[in-house]
């Protein structure tokens, strides 16, 4: 193998599994350490800079970081990264003064954001401090998009949404709320320098089954029903409710039903339990609230009597092997009838752009979606950009934020006459954490605690009111303990071959058998003859050369605890524990990566 080029930002970035997996590349371990140090405001600001909505995301994020977290590979469960974010948000105190100042001078450029969901709000936040005049349009009366209209209040109190949306409104964009845009042509005609479309994926899929017309009064589209609940147009539902669908929307529908008078609420899914789209924790929370999940039932017909819904008829499904592929097919068993008073259909969401004229030169693909560049978010009309659910279909908040950052970078490049394809590199720094012979500026003693559970409000109280937030969040002590579970994956093991004397001290001490000194070889073969086989191919082998014996140092990054013991046992300092800090470059840096914004840590003099 070639020696590893650790100057490539991606190399160590990949080692920080959580940050790499986060669409917005939030510097997770840094904020977790700040939480442990009770520096909640600083922890919040690291998040705010990267992901714009820490309080919201700390309660609702899809958390792609957690399945990626290294801790989940060395013991049972990952660090509760998401809920730690909430600890920062809950305890931060005043932070407005830490945010970038309002632009003192406008730059004369006008940008329109259509939709006020997380994608648009991110674009606005990134561009406003740079002096852009940003106009935000939304059909609703308040900003927040689906965060406000869809996510039920028992998961996300409205006060949290208000607070974090207001941080952006404080930069004084021109808001056109309560105003649906029904023509892109008209917006283009207003002469904006750039337009960002962040209108989401607003249409809930309909099943259109027999009996739906007759029983229609009690058959609802999930996302429409949820927004009616959010706006308090709806405050009750029948006693017996069937929710169709296995995604997160279905979970929100069933749990909301339990709070609006539903006593016998069931989720019915076409596939098996494991194939359901909902996150494991959402399924768990639903079951905890006494909601059974019935699998392998495909809805066939709504039954009704005297124009009133009586139930749903289902075909029984099962997996069959066909040409080596697994397929869901009817089993041929008799149909199943389940009685109910109301049905909520949560079987998917779609984009819909009836308001974009097809004669304005915008290219659409075969699925009738606008053609959007995956890196620049530019459409075929050069000054029109897309992001969030409207760009590539429904995803989640953190992806909407990541898109927003990228689109803002593009808009800024575009309006300053630069090439939108030249993406600015991230800002990267490396700093030794060595403070003494065996003292580091991070806590290298690995906690053996198992993942802490977030305390919850008891069902009797939680199910009585849709506005009672069901999770209480970690208190500072639990937050500290959970934070200590983080392995500090950003504190990198950096190896200097020429000063290594090959004494094996690091090999002997390493609890995870990460390090091997051996003859070089081809990667697949090398991976198998390391001290512990390196079978996780998604994780790199760090190869160091320059050794006197001509061998190489090969370190499997996979399950390294970042405990620093290798560096503590190294007699020559060939190993050092260096903090790698990577920050994404947002709009306005003109190709100059950001400087470290966090407080520098003291480093011992050499």
């Amino acid at each position, binding site marked *: 193998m070639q020696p590893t080029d650790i100057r490539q930002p991606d190399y160590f970035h990949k080692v920080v599994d959580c940050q790499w997996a986060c669409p917005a590349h939030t510097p997770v371990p840094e904020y977790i350490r700040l939480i442990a140090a009770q520096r909640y405001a600083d922890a919040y600001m690291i998040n705010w800079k990267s992901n714009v909505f820490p309080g919201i995301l700390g309660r609702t994020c899809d958390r792609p970081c957690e399945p990626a977290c290294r801790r989940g590979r060395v013991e049972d469960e990952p660090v509760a990264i998401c809920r730690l974010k909430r600890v920062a948000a809950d305890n931060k105190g005043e932070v407005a003064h830490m945010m970038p100042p309002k632009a003192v001078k406008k730059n004369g450029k006008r940008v329109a954001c259509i939709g006020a969901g997380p994608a648009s709000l991110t674009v606005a936040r990134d561009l406003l401090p740079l002096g852009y005049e940003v106009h935000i349009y939304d059909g609703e009366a308040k900003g927040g998009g689906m965060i406000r209209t869809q996510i039920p209040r028992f998961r996300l109190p409205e006060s949290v949404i208000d607070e974090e949306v207001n941080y952006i409104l404080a930069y004084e964009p021109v808001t056109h709320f309560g105003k649906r845009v029904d023509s892109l042509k008209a917006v283009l005609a207003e002469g904006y320098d750039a337009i960002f479309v962040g209108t989401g994926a607003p249409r809930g899929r309909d099943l259109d089954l027999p009996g739906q017309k007759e029983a229609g009064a009690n058959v609802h589209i999930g996302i429409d029903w949820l927004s009616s609940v959010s706006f308090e147009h709806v405050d009750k539902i029948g006693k017996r409710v069937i929710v169709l669908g296995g995604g997160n929307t279905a979970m929100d529908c069933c749990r909301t039903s339990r709070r609006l008078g539903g006593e016998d609420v069931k989720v019915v899914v076409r596939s098996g339990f494991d194939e359901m789209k909902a996150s494991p924790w959402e399924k768990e929370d639903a079951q905890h609230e006494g909601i059974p999940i019935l699998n392998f039932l495909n809805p066939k017909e709504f039954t009704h009597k005297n124009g009133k819904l009586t139930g749903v008829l289902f075909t029984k499904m099962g997996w069959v092997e066909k040409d080596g592929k697994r397929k869901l097919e009817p089993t041929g068993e008799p149909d199943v009838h389940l009685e109910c008073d109301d049905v909520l259909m949560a079987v998917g969401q779609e984009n819909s752009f009836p308001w974009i004229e097809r004669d304005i030169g915008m290219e659409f693909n075969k699925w009738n979606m606008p053609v959007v560049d995956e890196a620049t978010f530019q459409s075929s009309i050069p000054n029109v950009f897309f992001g969030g659910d409207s760009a590539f279909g429904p995803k989640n908040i953190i992806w909407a934020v990541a898109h927003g950052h990228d689109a803002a970078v593009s808009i800024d490049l575009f309006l300053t006459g630069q090439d939108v394809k030249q993406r600015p590199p991230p800002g990267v720094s490396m700093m030794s954490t060595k403070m003494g012979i065996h003292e580091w500026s991070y806590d290298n003693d690995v906690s053996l605690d198992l993942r802490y559970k977030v305390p919850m409000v008891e069902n009797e109280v939680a199910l009585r009111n849709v506005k009672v937030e069901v999770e209480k969040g970690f208190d500072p002590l639990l937050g500290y303990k959970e934070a200590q579970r983080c392995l500090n994956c950003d504190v990198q093991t950096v190896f200097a071959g020429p000063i290594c*004397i090959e004494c*094996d001290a690091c090999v002997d001490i390493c*609890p995870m058998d990460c390090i091997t000194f051996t003859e070089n070889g081809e990667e697949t073969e090398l991976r198998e003859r390391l001290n512990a086989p390196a079978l996780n191919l998604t994780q790199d082998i760090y190869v160091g050369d320059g050794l006197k014996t001509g061998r190489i140092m090969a370190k499997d990054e996979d399950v390294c605890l970042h*405990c620093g013991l290798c560096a503590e*046992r190294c*007699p020559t300092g060939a190993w050092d524990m260096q903090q790698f800090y990577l920050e994404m470059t947002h709009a306005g840096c003109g190709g100059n990566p950001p400087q470290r914004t966090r407080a520098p840590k003291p480093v011992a003099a050499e």
Partner: protein
Amino acid sequence: MTYIAKPSLHHPSLERNSVGFTRRDYEGRISTLCAGCGHDSISASIIQACFEIDLEPHRLAKFSGIGCSSKTPDYFVGPAHGFNAVHGRMPSVLTGANIAAKDLIYLGVSGDGDSASIGLGQFCHAVRRGVNMTYICENNGVYGLTKGQFSATSDKGSKAKKGAENKDSAIDLVMLALQLGATYVGRSFSGDKHQLVPLIKGALSHKGTSFIDVISPCVAFNNHVGSTKSFDYVREHNEAVNRMDVITPRAPITADYKAGELKEVVQHDGSILRLRKLEDDYDATDRNAALGYLARKASEGEIVTGLLYVDPDASDLHDGLNTVSCQLNKLTDQELIPSLSALEKINDSLR
């Protein structure tokens, strides 16, 4: 040394041996030696060897004297029995324990100062008696613990850290052990676990006195240019006469070698030492030839390593003393105190 304990978390593929332990279960407390000390690598090799021969930790008895090397039994096989004797007196304490409880596996760990200076007499007598033990000398050529004075194994002409030259002749413990009748003798290097681990495995399964001299650089006081016990010097002058695999009685035997390439030595407990020759004219079962070869190579400045001598049919101290088969400490009053009639018989014979 480090402040934090080694976390108990381990690699997901960590295996268990046939007695149910992982290699990590054979660890001890965290080492307090200098970072990079060769002795720590020897501890790691002992851990690996005990794991591989499926040793139940409570069957091991560890003994040592005084020195950095003698501190190491605290850093491996935590649950084993242990005794830390005074300087140079480890062999007699071990001998006493072995007399009383011969069924344990005896491991003595010592340093070149502990064995070749203050404890030289003790070393010699334990070897010539054939105590059933594995004796490992962690040889760094200095008194590490007392800050780097030359020890008796330091080569003539070797330089101290500040430049002083050693004027005295070196004692070669391997030669001594061979002359005194040790029945399993090896030399190795702390930086070569592929060689050291099988040597320790073979020694632990050997019946009789096993002696292994392990060159183990002292990074604090004897790892500079001019020293003959530094990592660089040993790597440059290391001449292995053979490579060995140890096949424990429990492991299935797989033969994948050409005839004549390998020599197999079956030990008393059924373990097989499979020796692959690196040096054509070296015969590890010929004591006198070994002595000659070692003397010749020593004069050329080479460090001969590998399994240097083995007598698989050796006897031990208990055979010589003709002790009863039962462990002495398990004998009860009934066996130890003669009956009245037996006493009368004795008295009668004296009348």
